[in-house]
Structure formats: C-alpha cells, structure tokens
C-alpha cells in the first residue's frame, strides 16, 4: 500500500485537476466531446509516464462528460451525445429563468453518479465483467428496444412520435452495413452518386449539433432574431436558488439512474448515449409524478446527468477486466496503455494492482474536482445567455463547425451534415414532427440493426428473442411494462385534455 502512496505526488493530483478543467471546457463547447479531449491529449501521456498520464486522461474523461450539461441546459445543444436527455428538462428550465438551478442540480447529480459508479467499479469489477458477458446480441438488442420505448412515453402525440422515431432509425441506416460490425459492407438507402459522401452514413455528433444547434438558429432567424439576448426572461440570481431540498424524495431516482448508467456503460458496444436515455425512460415510468418531465422537471436532469456520469465507472469495467472498451472514450484510453506497453485484459487488475489503485484514486479525485469547479463556476457560466445573440450565434456556428470537422479527424462532409440536418431539423419542427424521438431513433438505430440481424443470423429464428435466457425474459417484462405505462399515460392525458376543452 505504501508503494501506491509514493506514486501519488502533487503532480498527480494537479494533472487530474487540470484534466477535469480542460475536460469541462471541451465538454462545454458544443461539438467538442470527452472522446476528443482524451484523443488530443493522448500523445502527452507518453512523456508523462503511465500513472501521471492516466491521471490526466481520467480527469479529461470525467470533466468532458460533465461539461456536456452546460450547452445542453443553456443553449439546448447537447455538448456530448450522452447529454441529449439533459436538454429535455434543462432547456425548459433555463427558459423559465432557472438555468442556474438546473445546472446546480445537474452538477450534484453528476458527482453522485460518478462516485457511485467508481465505487461499483472498485468493488465489483471482475464480478460484473463476468455478468456482462452473459449479454449476447439477443440481450443487447432487447436493451436497445427497451431504450427505444422511451419514444412512446416521451412523444406529445404517440403516433407522430413513433413515426419520428422510426424516421430517425431509417436515417441512421443510410450508408454501409459496416464490416467492422460484421456486416457485408454494402451500401443501402441512397443513390450511387452519393457514395463518396455518404459511404459511412451520417455521423452522430454532426447530426446532433446540426439538428439542435443549427436548427435553433434557423428558427430564430426566421423570427428575425428579435431580442438582443439569448434568454430574455432569464433573470440571473432570481430563480437560481438552489438547495439540496430539490433532491428530497429523489434519492431512489439518483441511485437507480447511477446504477443504470454504470450497468449500460459496462456493456461493450451499447454504452454511451443509451445510458442516459434508459435512465430517463425508467424515471418516467417508475416515478409517481412524471407528468412534468420534458417540461422542466429537475428529476429529469437528475436521471440524465447521474446516468451519464455513471458511465465513466461503468465503461471502465470491461476495459480493465476484459480488455474491452465500454464506450468510445475508453476505446481511446486503451491507447494510453498500449503506448506504455501494458496490456489490458482479464488479468490486468491482479497483475497491475498499483495502476489499478492509482486509477481509482484519479477517478474519485477527478469527480470531486469536477464538482467544485462546476458548482462554483456555474454563476459565471450561466451568464452565457446574457451575451447578445448577434455575438453568440456566429460563435456557436463556428464552434459547431470545429466539432463536426474534428470528430472524425477531419472530414468535410461532416460539416455539411450540420447544414443538412440543421435545415431538416427546422423542417421537421415546422411540419409538426418531434425532434427528441427522431434523435433517439437515430442514436440507437444502428445498434438495433446489428444486434437484431446478428441474433437472427446466429439462431435462425425469431423465437430466440423470447427463449434465449432468463435475462431476456426479464427484459421483455420491462419492455412490456414500459409500453403499457406509456399507453396508459397517453390515454390519461388525452382524457384530461378532453376534460379541459369541454369545461
């Protein structure tokens, strides 16, 4: 144990803190992600050595995931794909003048999610890795299906919402059925002349910031960009009141969402955005008073942010105990180990106990630093909405361009995707389709295809989805409950509306 203490010097903590800070900045810029932050700092770790390097990278990881909440709440643009569900309640709150409060709720939820997942990682990593390999294509497909059921419960009108979701799935299928997923590499759903551009389909991040960021600007432009400020009604200070009372009765939500985030994070290939979507679904289904969700309820923020920060610990589980990354950021993190000539795999923890304890320290410390940095910076960050629109909007477009161009290391078509989906996002909102279901369909569509088709290729029968394992049965029960719930809720609100119109 003493050996480990000698590894933890001042530089170590400074690097973890610096990582958290840089990560937050990356995450807070629309279009920049945690993955990108880790990727650009990876070369530095060679000079820093393994333990110092890991401190920096884990700081970046935690900071980057958390930073995503800032533009999600204040500008309605998810800074990272996993903060998509944060926009559902965060932005309505910001519009009501509660941006600061929304951010504080998110920060507290984030740190709790991060710490819970770190604890789970520390205590149960090998055990959970054992459990995670019980999830084959069949069970993973059912998890995606469960996450997709959120579409039904989230839509204003169920028929339109489901159609929007299916449209999102359809859009995600454009391009090749990639051989890196085991597909046959053929393209579909497009014309041959588009192949040079659309070969790999539309990438997620440009689609996301196009449909949220650019479309929002177009909608504003249509109205003439009237008011000088981004949030006319936002009064800083007022309504920003925050107390832990907001978390009263939300403990179940907080813990459940953290567990969901950790759990989804540890399933290789599923991870990422599915975690917060799933946590949001479950809160919507299970809580007694979910009618306000989507209109600015703190409980939505709690579910979303605790789940997406819990991802960090979750995604490290398969990385450290199977050698398999749980999400795109940990996939880059593998590079830090190989760069130092260290293998990750089932024997990593027993054979590199020092590194393992060092990583845990860095992870916990980065979460705490993130909390203090964010919690006390919020007052100033929230002032972004006071910047006049004629200054703010051009900068948002510019940063979206940087993010879109850099996400796949320099592809110009990703920048055009911004405009395409900006205009598309404008049109779908105008004709009355729903954006949130569409984007969830887009995020989960590709995985749904691979898991579905591969399950059938292996087993050759649809019945496998019901008979594969007890886990599959449990997942079906959850799906059934989720669907029933949204139907009941839909009927209730319809009845309520009718009542109101007759009165």
């Amino acid at each position, binding site marked *: 144990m003493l050996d480990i203490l000698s590894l933890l010097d001042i530089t170590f903590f400074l690097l973890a803190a610096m990582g958290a800070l840089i990560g937050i900045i990356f995450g807070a810029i629309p279009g920049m992600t945690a993955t990108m932050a880790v990727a650009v700092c990876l070369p530095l770790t060679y000079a820093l050595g393994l333990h110092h390097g890991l401190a920096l990278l884990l700081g970046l990881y935690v900071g980057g995931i958390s930073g995503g909440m800032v533009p999600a709440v204040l500008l309605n643009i998810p800074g990272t794909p996993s903060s998509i569900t944060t926009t559902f309640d965060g932005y309505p709150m910001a519009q009501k003048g509660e941006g600061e409060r929304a951010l504080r709720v998110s920060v507290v939820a984030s740190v709790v999610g991060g710490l819970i997942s770190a604890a789970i990682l520390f205590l149960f990593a090998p055990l959970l890795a054992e459990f995670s390999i019980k999830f084959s294509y069949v069970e993973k497909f059912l998890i995606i299906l469960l996450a997709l059921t959120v579409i039904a419960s989230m839509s204003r*009108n169920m028929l339109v919402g489901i159609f929007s979701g299916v449209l999102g799935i359809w859009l995600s299928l454009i391009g090749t059925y990639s051989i890196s997923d085991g597909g046959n590499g053929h393209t579909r759903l497009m014309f041959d002349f588009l192949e040079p551009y659309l070969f790999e389909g539309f990438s997620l991040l440009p689609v996301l910031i196009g449909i949220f960021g650019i479309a929002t600007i177009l909608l504003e432009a249509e109205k003439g960009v009237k008011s000088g400020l981004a949030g006319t009604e936002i009064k800083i200070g007022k309504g920003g009141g925050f107390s832990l009372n907001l978390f009263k009765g939300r403990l179940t939500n907080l813990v459940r969402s953290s567990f969901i985030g950790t759990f989804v994070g540890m399933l290789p290939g599923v991870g990422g955005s599915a975690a917060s979507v799933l946590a949001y679904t479950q809160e919507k289904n299970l809580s007694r008073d979910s009618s306000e969700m989507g209109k600015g309820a703190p409980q939505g923020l709690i579910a979303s942010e605790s789940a997406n920060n819990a991802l960090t610990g979750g995604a490290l589980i398969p990385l450290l105990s199977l050698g398999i990354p749980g999400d795109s950021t940990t996939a880059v993190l593998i590079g830090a180990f190989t760069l130092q000539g260290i293998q990750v795999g089932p024997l990593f923890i027993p054979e590199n106990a020092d590194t393992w304890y060092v990583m845990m320290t860095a992870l916990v410390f980065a979460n705490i630093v993130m909390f203090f940095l964010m919690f006390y910076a919020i007052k100033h960050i929230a002032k972004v909405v006071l910047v006049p629109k004629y200054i703010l909007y051009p900068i948002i477009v510019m940063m979206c361009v*940087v993010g879109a161009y850099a996400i796949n290391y320099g592809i110009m078509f990703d920048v055009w995707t911004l405009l395409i989906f900006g205009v598309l996002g404008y049109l779908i909102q105008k004709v009355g389709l729903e954006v949130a279901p569409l984007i969830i369909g887009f995020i989960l569509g590709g995985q749904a295809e691979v898991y579905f088709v591969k399950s059938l290729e292996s087993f050759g029968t649809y019945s496998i989805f019901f008979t594969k394992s007890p886990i599959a049965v449990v997942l079906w029960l959850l799906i059934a409950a989720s669907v029933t719930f949204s139907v009941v809720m839909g009927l209730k609100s319809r009845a309520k509306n009718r009542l109101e119109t007759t009165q």
Partner: protein
Amino acid sequence: MESGLTSLFSVSIDFETSHLFFPHIINWLMGGLFALILVFKVVPFLAAVRRGEETLPILGESMDKFRFFGSIALIAAYFYLMAVVGNLFPYTGYGFLFVSMAFVFLMSMMYMHTKTKRKVITAVINAIVAPSLAWFILAKLFQITLP
C-alpha cells in the same frame, strides 16, 4: 403444432443481402405509420386549413425572409469557402481561420437590428478574436486538423 410454430418463426438471412434485411422492416414500418398519419392527422389538418381554422406550416406563416435565407446562404458559403481557402494552405487551418473571421462578422451584422458604432466595433473585435483563439488553441496547441 410444435414444428409449425418453429417454422413460422424461423428465418434465414443470406449474408450477401443481409444489409437490406433490417432496412426492409423499417421501410414497411415507416410506410405503415405514414399512412396512419395521413389518415388521422394530415387529412383532418388539411380540411381545417380549407375551413380557414389553421394555416399551412412555413408557407402560411410570416417570416423574416432576409435573415432566414440569409443565414442559410451565409452558412453554405462559409462551409464551401472554408474548404476552398483551406486547400490553398494545406493543413494549416488558415481556411478555417480567415473564412471564420468573415463569417462571424457578417452574421453579426445580419442579426444586429440597430447598428451603433459601439456594437459594430464589438462585432469586429469578436470576429477577429474568437476565430483566432479557437484556431490557436485547437490547431496549434492541440494539433487538431482544421480545414
């Protein structure tokens, strides 16, 4: 019965055409839902438009045509010129730097309703500082490839 049920569920996917299997399902699903929407949403809506109770989206609404189409045109020109200028100075990020300056300034001017000297100066400074800062930090410090 048992075998009948098994064969009902059984499916064999040819690897060569497996890229079309899932999209086919989605196409049908989307087609079906679209038909339902036509019947339950679009037709009643159009009837309401005819009765004059509702207006058509986009076409029937008032809009700031100059700022709306101006934004789209400006963004398109921005993306296009960025690649063109960037190609003159390969992988330096100058395409992004210079074209962004022009873009940020022009968009600021377009969204500004009353132009005072102070506001214009702020816009000019912003148009120079913001892209330079972004370019310096990302392209120089972090060596991210920019157009």
